[in-house]
């Protein structure tokens, strides 16, 4: 299924989509991996940083709960809004 990004559905239909969705959000969200992992660990996540990185590169599957927690962590971090400044052209 192609995601044209037009509808912006926040709830993915199945697990592969959830992973793709998380990976895309992580890339666009300007979040550091150590920062994400620390936050995810803080809300109860149990997979180590390497495992989370592999998941976000769409290399491995994780237990549904861990995927949900990563999703939650990304959502809560981006909602806080780091608001990064930007030098044009960099």
């Amino acid at each position, binding site marked *: 299924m192609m995601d044209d990004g037009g509808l912006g559905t926040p709830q993915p239909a199945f697990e592969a989509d959830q992973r793709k969705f998380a990976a895309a959000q992580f890339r666009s969200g*300007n*979040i*550091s991996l*150590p*920062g994400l992992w*620390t*936050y995810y*660990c*803080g*809300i*109860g996540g149990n997979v180590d940083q390497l495992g989370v990185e592999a998941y976000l590169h769409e290399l491995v599957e994780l*237990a*549904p*709960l861990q995927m*949900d*927690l990563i999703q*939650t962590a990304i959502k*809560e971090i981006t909602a806080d809004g*780091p*608001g*990064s*400044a*930007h*030098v*044009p*052209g*960099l």
Partner: protein
Amino acid sequence: MSQDFDIREPESGNVGRAGAGLHEFVLHLQDLVLASSDVREFLTDTAAILATQLSQPGNHLSCGITVVRQKRPVAVASSDALARNQDELQNSFGRGPCLTALRTESMVHVPDLDADVRWPKYNHAARQMGIGSILALPMHLHAPAHAVINLYSPNTDGFPHHGIDAAVGLAGIAAKALDLALNIAQLRDARDDLAAALKSRTVIDTAIGAIMAQNRCNRDAAFEILVKASSYRNIKLKEVAAGIISGIGGEREFPTTYDE
């Protein structure tokens, strides 16, 4: 065996007037690294001492420093309002000597703004603000960041050869200090994140235990209930957990001892 370290003697005269104050400059930078509470404060003080150190009678320099880190806001600092306005002016154009130095990681020297043809619009605007010449020096860092020192002179040809050599020498020393300051800042951030995570996890784990007891379910199922509740109500997981605990035990504060 090849020598992979630099054993060249510093050529006398190259460091110019700064040579005398070099020792003090290094000590001053070390103090700044130790005393600054954040990177911006360190940069502001560094810009000020660079401007003082490199200024000559009749050639008062302004100094701005820009640091771009991955996934972090850009840090900008300056010795005075003139340098700050110049950095902002250049950012508004999106191009100019300092941004070019930052992107190409090589030195950019504009000896005469009127004669330079590379950035005509920016040069004209900078000239209006009383700038005669510009020297932009990239700082070579080990940290995953890019930084540039921007020096502004009110005179044309404000950076003669010995002036450039002195500035390059000081920029190299300042880069090492900046590397240290960035490292310390990154470790401090990581420590703060971990302390926050420890605190949050205590609250969440307590709530998970309560949900398990109430629903007679295992840990994973309790977590799913908590995650769903947070998602449906669009409230942070930690806040839902805190609500559950205070609903049962009446607690609103959850002290977590975390000594350094």
